Each structure stands twice: as C-alpha cells, then as structure tokens.
C-alpha cells in the first residue's frame, strides 16, 4: 500500500469546516447568486445570513456523519512555514469542496466546488478540483463523478472541461439568472477516463 496524502497538495490543504470561524466568510460569498443557488439548492437564490450558513452546514455535516451521503471539506492555503501543517487550520477558508448525492451502490456522485474570490479561483481552482477527484476516485472508489453547472458560469464549465469532463446533458432553460433563462449543464468524468488522463500525465 502506497500512502498518498489525500488532503494536501502543493498549495492547498483540505480541513474540516469550522462553522464558528468559517460561516461568516462563506456567507459573504453568497452575494454571488450562482453560489447562493448552489448552496440553497432548489430554493430561490439570495444572499444568506451567517446563521443560515451555519445551520445549513450543520445539517450537511450531520448527514455526512449519519449516512455518508456527502463529504464536505474546507479549502485553505498552506502556510509558508509548513513544518507539521498544524498552523494551516488557522488560515482563512478560501473555498468549499463537496462530494454529494453519493449513490454508493452505483459508484456515482456529484462534485461541487466553490471558491470565494476570483483571484483564488484563477490560482487554485484546478488544484482544488484535482484534490476532489483524487478523493472521489481513489478513496471513495467511485466509478463516475458529475458536475452541474449553469450555462452562464463559463469559468466553471471551462475548468471542468480542462479536467477532461464531458458535457453529457443540457437541460433547456432550467436556470433563471440575470433577466433570462439559461440551460443547466451536466458534465461527467468516468473512472477509466480519469485513469487514462493520469497515465498520460505520468508519461508526459
């Protein structure tokens, strides 16, 4: 058995979400209504109060604990003087990674990646997604991973396309945002495709 660390990469570390400390930051991201929509799921998108964020994540953490229906991680930047990593849990949360709607029987789940600000997205989104995929395929042994992205969120579509996801479903006019209806896109990545990409990267 080779023990590859699952919860850290070159610049990032996955940690538990500390709701007392992190809720305020997460709530501040919900002025971006696409983010609010993903947190509030079928409820209308609107900015969320800190206590709501706290309640929501408490519910999700409980679900995760009770039936393993989802996994939630805070994304943080690794500290510069990273001797044993103990200082990292103190560093500010920059995003949330969520593997959800897990169908254990079929080895299928959805992945959602939220990164609070544009600059962090540019710099770290790809790295965070790779952490999520490694966890989904290597640790959870999933066969496939799905990402649901509103058509207007092109930055996010581009990220998943770059990670070799395939556009599989286009639900016509299933999203309303900024004055009009947009399609809802479903991207999928299959285990063999992910393995192949890894092999290609090793060979390169």
């Amino acid at each position: 058995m080779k023990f590859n660390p699952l919860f850290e990469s070159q610049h990032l570390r996955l940690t538990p979400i500390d709701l007392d400390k992190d809720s305020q930051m997460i709530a501040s991201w919900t002025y971006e209504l696409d983010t609010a929509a993903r947190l509030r799921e079928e409820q209308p998108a609107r900015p969320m109060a800190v206590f709501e964020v706290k309640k929501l994540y408490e519910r999700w953490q409980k679900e995760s604990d009770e039936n393993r229906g989802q996994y939630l991680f805070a994304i943080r930047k690794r500290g510069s003087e990273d001797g044993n990593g103990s200082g990292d849990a103190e560093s500010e949360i920059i995003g949330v990674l969520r593997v959800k709607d897990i169908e254990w029987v079929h080895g299928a789940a959805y992945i959602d990646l939220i990164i609070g600000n544009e600059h962090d997205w540019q710099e770290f989104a790809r790295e965070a997604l790779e952490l999520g995929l490694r966890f989904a395929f290597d640790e959870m042994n999933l066969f496939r991973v799905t990402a649901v992205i509103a058509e207007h969120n092109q930055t996010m579509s581009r990220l998943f396309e770059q990670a070799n996801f395939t556009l599989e479903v286009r639900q016509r006019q299933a999203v309303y945002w900024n004055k009009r209806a947009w399609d809802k896109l479903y991207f999928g990545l299959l285990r063999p495709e992910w393995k192949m990409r890894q092999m290609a990267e090793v060979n390169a």
Partner: protein
Amino acid sequence: MNASAFTGKRIRLAVFDPERDSEKMARWNQNSQYQQLLDSGPSNLFTPAQIKEWIEKHYDEIYNFSIRLLDDDRMVGIVDLSGFDWTAGNAWVGIGIGEPDLWGKGYGTEAMHLILRFAFEELNLKRVSLTVFEYNERAYQSYKKTGFREEGRLRQWLQRGGERYDLIFMGVLRDEWEECYRRYLMEQT
C-alpha cells in the same frame, strides 16, 4: 378548476392518501422489477407503516397523486411532482404503474398528460424534467408521446447485475407539451 381537471378518459389522479394507499405501494414493491424500473436504490421491502411515515414527512415538498381507474376506482399507480425550482419554473416528475398486467396499455401516458396539464396550466411551470434508466424502453417511449425530448445521458450512471447503464435526462417545455396534448385529445375523440 375542479376535479374534472384531474380526470382523463380511463383514469383519474386522486390525492395520495398515506393512510389508505401505502399498503398497496408496499405490495407493488414485492415485484423487484417494478422497483428496478422506478428507483436507483437497492430494492427494499418497506412496511406500509414506513412508507406512510416517509410520504407524510415529505408531503409538503412532493406532490403525490395516485392513479385510479375510472371503472372501479382501483389504484393502479402513482405519479408525483417534486424538486420545484419556482424561479426557473422547473419540477421533476416521477411515475409508476404498479400492476404489471396494465403495463404497455397507455395508462402511464394518460396520467402523465394529466400531471403535465396541472404542472403547466395551474402551477405555471415552464418545463418539467425527468430521468429514466436506459433499460426502461417502454417508459422512454411513453415519455416521448407526452412531448418529452431527450436532453442527454449521464453515461454508465447505474449498475445492475454487473452491467452499467446510462441515466437518460428528458425535458418538456410548455409549448412542446401543448402540441402533444392537442394531438392526444384529438385522437381520443
């Protein structure tokens, strides 16, 4: 709007009564094929009491109807709307005919028209969505008859008996349904 809006030529949609109707659902579940066509979870044999409790708990967010024959008022299936997105005007529909001897006779198509009429003309939805398993060809054809179009497939999404199958997404927009419904009504007369 009155009860006739929920009444078709051979069937009607009735409010699902958890007290009265759960026992029948438990009985249908004994046919594992029915469950494998309807649901992705491992087939399970819940008691009528468990089913009743679950449906009552979600009664506000899942609009449940029973499908009943006009002839003898026998309950032969269920249909529901859930996952409402009131901003986009989208909801998800699920449907099952529990009596295998009634499969392939158009009862599901008729019930789907009734629930779509309710969804579009009363709830003011813009579109209705569903998913269907690749191996459920009969349902797929029935959905096409009520105006649903395939919108893509999550490849190899589920595993049954060691084989993997796609999860097919379908959707119908209001005007697409209207067109089909008009044609359907004409065929009925």
